[in-house]
């Protein structure tokens, strides 16, 4: 009886240990508090390229035109053409390999999810996280439609935002290839080096440096 009880206790201990080490690490300091699901829900607003994190909701470009005109067009222009120095949202196709590339949501951004994520978290400038979920889908749909990526009646939602094919989806290279120049292993040229030493440009001539 005693022996059986001992075996039982040691078995439970063994299982407990296995469970603890397999499924949950042990706390070392016992600092901080466990977050409730409601607390996490309120702050966990990011949306990933595969649509993970996209809140339930939907909107199309037709409905998006009105809200876009109200809260976006003041800086980005009625047609996404950009105002003053605020960025363009439309155009730039076939410019990325030229001397004057134009990076817009249409020409450069690889994922529609990033548009939802960024617009909801940071726009309108100075009034962040003030849009509703549906308004955000509507605005994203309107910008995608201006870039001829979706039709005006296409209903963008949490179910399909991870499946929108952006034109520059395959425009990015990984991993980082640097160092990407010749590395001299600490023995660079010290004398009579073959380098150009003719002055070909002076910042002073361009004259854009702020004066005190």
């Amino acid at each position, binding site marked *: 009886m005693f022996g059986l009880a001992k075996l039982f206790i040691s078995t439970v201990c063994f299982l407990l240990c296995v469970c603890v080490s397999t499924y949950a690490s042990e706390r070392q300091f016992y600092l901080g508090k466990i977050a409730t699901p409601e607390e996490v829900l309120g702050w966990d607003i990011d949306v990933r390229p595969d649509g993970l994190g996209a809140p339930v909701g939907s909107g199309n470009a037709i409905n998006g035109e009105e809200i876009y005109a109200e809260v976006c067009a003041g800086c980005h222009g009625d047609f996404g053409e950009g105002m003053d120095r605020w960025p363009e949202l439309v155009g730039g196709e076939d410019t990325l390999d030229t001397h004057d590339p134009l*990076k817009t949501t249409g020409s450069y951004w690889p994922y529609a999810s990033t548009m939802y*994520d960024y617009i909801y978290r940071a726009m309108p400038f100075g009034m962040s996280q003030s849009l509703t979920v549906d308004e955000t889908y509507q605005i994203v749909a309107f910008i995608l439609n201006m870039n001829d990526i979706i039709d005006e009646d296409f209903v963008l939602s949490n179910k399909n935002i991870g499946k929108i094919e952006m034109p520059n989806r395959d425009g990015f290279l990984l991993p980082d290839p640097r160092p990407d120049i010749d*590395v001299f292993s600490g023995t660079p040229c010290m004398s*009579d080096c073959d380098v150009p*030493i003719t002055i070909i440009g002076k910042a002073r001539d361009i004259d854009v440096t702020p004066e005190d």
Partner: protein
Amino acid sequence: MVKKREIVKGINRRRLLGGATALGSLAMTSKVFSQVKANRDNLPPNLPEWTPDLGPGVDVNPYGTPSIFEENVIRRNVPWLTASAESSVNFTPLQDLEGIITPNGLCFERHHGGVPEINPADYRLMINGLVDREMIFTLDDLKRFPQTNKFYFLECAANGGMEWKGSQLNGCQFTFGMVHNVQYTGVKLSDLLSETGLKPKAKWVLAEGSDTSGMTRSIPIEKILEDCLIVWAMNGEALRAEQGYPVRLVVPGWEGNMWVKWIRRLEFGDKPYMTREETSKYTDLLSNGKARMFTWVMEAKSVVTSPSPEKPILQKGVHQIRGLAWSGRGKIKRVDVSIDGGKNWKTSKLHGPVFSKSLSRFTFPLNWNGEELLIQSRAIDETGYVQPHIHELQKVRGLNSIYHNNSIATWLVNKNGKVENVRLG
């Protein structure tokens, strides 16, 4: 007695105010205070004007500020660079600094929606996603963990970005000033994560700020566990509001944009999040139209801070060329200096302390006889990496890059001692 003391104080205050006004008008005509002529009445054998009177007492300036004669040593911005000052950048006056520490009030600022004002009592750091326990920490909780104190440089990936195609801004501050170097106090993320535990599938972290831009970047878990910190102090005092008060992320050696300020959340996931900042920004467009992504490391770089466009040579004879060097891959091993545009080089004196992923100070003696000079510096880090010429970078990356310009700069010293930013070719 009291009355007499007040009179003395009053006289001094008037004198200080008068001095400030005079300096203000001088600053309008000249950027370099050292060029201003001395007042002969204060020179030997005369009694200097500040000697007879009492100065301000210990109750006048409870938080110290620099001498009024240093009012020219400030952060500066380039208004035409950005659409608004709230989403913009200013620059550290490297030309005026000594040693390797950047004073807190001179650390360059880059925000995307201005500086939030956060009561530390309201501060919370949430850790969620692929962890064993989703948790929330107060500032007091964070300060109770084992602490660490480390010197690190922080450089914006766009430092020198305006110089990709040619020399554009005529100043050390504007071409190199998006870097600063302070001692941080905080907790290792690996210690913090021992509290939450990590699920085996956790490979990436999303770091998120609580400012109006909700700054977010993805960071691979290896880097987080290697040396990333959550910090609340810089150079011995609480973080400045513009540097993330009360808490920011430190990602040693990697581009400044990832060092999320006013950090509110770390989410662990199995894939990168592809935020706006790591797709549409902070990617490097090559000449074939493809762009490099996740180019995080800040490669070895150096700058001559004096002489420089802001620090002309005022007289012939002996001078010390002074400069800073740094590498995101470790320690600076050596800095070479050239005064003939890179044709011939000599090794400078590297001053201690030399920390990993921190600014290091170098000097090199110069005897100037009024001839034209083309001054350059070239950093070599402990991996053997040698700071490149801009032509080498352009050959591989084209002309459309904005970020990661760590090339050698050239200061032309004219025969009159004035210095300017030039491009050689």
